[in-house]
């Protein structure tokens, strides 16, 4: 091979060119100018609305501060200490874990079951799809109000039910043991349609041939679901589980109209806890600390989930 071959200018095929080489050869295809033009707006917005508030919360979480003026009363880790010792926070964390569990093990299977029943494109199925999706479209606060009326033992649906059954009216949202069960029921009702839609979209993408081939091979419906449909929509299930977990960590606006965290602080989630004990009581420093904890939990879950599930699902 002659060292003076003209191809030397462009370097041997297969070797990756360095950035400076590419720049010199004009091989960046306008990617660099595109980056320079398109990146700053996103970067600025992200910094303004995500990074700055986050940094601020982190800073405030070390102060005893009511939100007015400049924080001066530095208390170190005291806010975190108080949270760690607060029994209501323990209940809130427990409740959040319960919501995650119910979302994963009750809501998702329910959504999958319904999706399997109605994923094919027929007019009846379109109707049921709409009906099941309606709760998701409804504003959280409205949903909370509707259900607080349903559960109301004096005037609500449960009152009429108790009357027609001839039993004593039951105030489930005021019951220490059962209030959170009611809350979780509403959560499942509100969000299963979202997961169902993800599954329906994925199921519609499964080639009908695969199902027919399985039928010919002798697979019955449950086996088709188990061996063909579910493996085929696994990426969608992984994504929906991710939304379920992250969503469960953030449940807030359903609970405020339903129970407002009561009775005796039994139905708080991490976010309603933050709202009640941080914001409404003007403990901005304390609330910020809760926010920081929540953020760390969420980011940890997200990173681990991506690492262990999403990657494998894609390959």
């Amino acid at each position, binding site marked *: 091979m002659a060292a003076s071959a003209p191809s030397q200018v462009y370097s041997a095929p297969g070797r990756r060119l360095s950035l400076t080489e590419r720049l010199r050869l004009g091989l960046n295809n306008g990617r660099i100018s595109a980056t320079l033009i398109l990146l700053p707006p996103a970067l600025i917005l992200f910094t303004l609305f995500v990074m700055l508030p986050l940094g601020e919360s982190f800073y405030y979480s070390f102060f005893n501060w009511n939100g007015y003026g400049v924080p001066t009363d530095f208390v170190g880790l005291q806010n975190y200490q108080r949270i760690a010792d607060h029994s209501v926070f323990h209940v809130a964390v427990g409740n959040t874990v319960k919501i995650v569990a119910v979302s994963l093990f009750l809501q998702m299977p329910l959504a999958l079951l319904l999706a399997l029943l109605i994923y094919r494109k027929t007019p009846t199925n379109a109707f049921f799809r709409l009906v099941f999706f309606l709760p998701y479209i409804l504003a959280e606060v409205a949903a909370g109000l509707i259900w607080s009326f349903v559960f109301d033992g004096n005037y609500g649906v449960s009152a009429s039910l108790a009357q027609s059954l001839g039993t004593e009216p039951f105030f489930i949202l005021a019951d220490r043991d059962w209030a959170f069960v009611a809350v979780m029921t509403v959560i499942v009702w509100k969000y299963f349609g979202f997961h169902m839609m993800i599954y329906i979209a994925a199921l519609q993408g499964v080639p009908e*041939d695969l199902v027919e*081939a*399985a*039928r*010919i*091979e*002798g*697979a019955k419906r449950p086996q088709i679901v188990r061996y063909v449909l579910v*493996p*085929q929509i696994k990426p969608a299930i992984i994504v929906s589980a991710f939304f379920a977990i992250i969503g469960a960590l953030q449940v807030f606006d359903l609970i405020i109209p339903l129970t407002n965290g009561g009775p005796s602080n039994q139905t708080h989630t991490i976010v309603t806890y933050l709202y009640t004990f941080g914001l409404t009581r003007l403990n901005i420093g304390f609330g910020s600390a809760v926010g920081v904890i929540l953020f760390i939990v969420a980011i940890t879950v997200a990173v681990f989930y991506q690492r262990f599930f999403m990657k494998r699902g894609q390959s």
Partner: protein
Amino acid sequence: MAEVRLQNVNKSFGNVTVIPDLNLTVPDGSFTVLVGPSGCGKSTLLRTIAGLEMPTSGQVLIGGEDVTLQEPSNRGISMVFQSYALYPHMTVEQNIDFGLRLAKIPAAERKERVAEAARILALQDHLDRRPGQLSGGQRQRVAIGRSIVRHPKVFLFDEPLSNLDAALRTQMRVELAQLHQSIDATMIYVTHDQVEAMTLADQIVVMNAGRIEQVGPPMELYEAPQTEFVASFIGSPKMNLLPGSAIARDDVRTVGIRPEHILVDRTGGDWAARTQVVETLGADTIAYMVADGLGDVTVRLPGHVRLKAGEQLYLTPERQNLHLFGQDGRRMKEAA
């Protein structure tokens, strides 16, 4: 081994009738090929035999047994789809094994059957791969492997080779013919491809708009097409269909003559014609001409014949190879 019989089968989707009334017998152990234009109902017919579609009326019999109401898996059939329909999340081995596992066949026997299929189809080295890591031809073999391990009585193929390139198609065609010889089951095969139909079939079924135009061995369809449709459909290049006036017969609506049955002369003949386009294929030369007062005529000549576009020539059809079709479009009994 089993004969497949369709009796008065009608298939409609809503108020669209795809197959009006069809009767067909596929003999035990035969290789029967269904051909016909796109949308004529070949796939629908095959799926009806498979049990993936329920006939609107009529019966499907396999091995003398009425299976019209049976599930696909109880009919003793297997099907190879045009798309192969392999399970992407399973390995080749699991794909082939799937039906056996569902049928709860003992592991030892399953292993044996999968190994045998892998040997027949030369898939031994690929058993641990997933379909996404295979070439088109290999996927095709896996799909066939999946159907042979179940030892079905009837194999159904819906255009199994149409996604392959020409060379691979030829190779797989030979392999399918060998497979049919070695396992000796009934095979029903849908294709668009003339060559596949002529080379693979013991019996060709020509369909048109949900009806059967003609059933018979390949050479019979080639030599004595019963309708104008079959005449135009079987053979490549297509048979020339000319008005009866070409041979001065009023009672003949259409006269057919294959491109290989026309003599060409520079000095004299029955029809004067001008050459439009000449295709030199090596073994053959195909000339597309326009005959005076008759229209387009295609002629097939030996490869060594050299023709130029625009050349004025005379064509003479071979008398004994004329096909005459009457006013009803059907073949006339008498010879020309």
